[in-house]
């Protein structure tokens, strides 16, 4: 089973790197782009088994280490869950 973790800055937290990408896209002619927010993508290999239990473990990992919940949100997707 694979867990995919997406970590994003909370809305309202300034993302200067996202701003730079946004301005670069505009320079390249992609005027349709509104705002750009950068985040992190983390892939975790897990043993096959109970999806709910795995999800609970991954969320614990997010709260403890993978995300800083003071400034970041996280979202977990499981692939290959039974």
């Amino acid at each position, binding site marked *: 089973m694979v867990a995919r973790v997406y970590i994003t800055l909370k809305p309202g*937290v*300034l993302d*200067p*790197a996202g701003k*730079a990408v946004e301005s670069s896209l505009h320079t390249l002619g992609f005027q349709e782009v509104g705002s750009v927010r950068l985040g992190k993508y983390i892939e975790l290999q897990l043993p096959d088994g109970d999806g709910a239990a795995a999800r609970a473990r991954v969320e614990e990992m997010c709260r403890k*280490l*993978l995300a*800083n919940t*003071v*400034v970041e949100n996280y979202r977990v997707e499981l692939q290959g869950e039974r």
Partner: protein
Amino acid sequence: MKVGIVVFPGSNCDEDTLHVVRDVFGRPAELIWHKEHDLHRADYVVLPGGFSYGDYLRCGAIARFSPVMDEVVAFARRGGPVLGICNGFQILTEAGLLPGALLLNAGQRFLGRDVLLRADGRPSRFTGGLSRTARYRLPIAHMDGRYFIDEEGHRRLEGEGGVLFRYADDNPNGSLGAIAGVVNEAGNVAGLMPHPERNAEPVLGNLDGRTVFAALLGS
């Protein structure tokens, strides 16, 4: 008073801090390797600057789980004084010992230069003897120094006078409220982004770092 300076893999201001505490202030001091479960009977703990664990994931995110941090947290909970400088400040916020977080500089660049700092907040063991009207010139050296805290946390922090230092005149990294250093509610854990250990001797330009570091140590 004995000062313990924690060394994480990637710390790079540990020896400077040791030198200043020992040779400038004449205090007994020791380095403490992060794998240890013992603070060497230190009465004051410093988490120095650097790039612990290569700043992987987030600055300070991995260092906060180093074995010695169990002892640092317990020491802080007992009221022991803990100071974080730069990366040490980041580690203390990651560990939840200080409120808020330190994010990528608003200008997205590493900043290595002097800033002007002013002491603020309620009277504390870390800022006694510092003038409220003076400007202290201290070096900064960081990529992730933009202090951030949510609105409610910010109100609380300002309300309790927990902002110990602010950038005066210009705000180099976009920190909320120009916050450069904070203290916890109990008053025994503090962190700041500038490096007082880097200008604590005449040969290094000015002695403002010495003045600020002396206050931080309570000497």
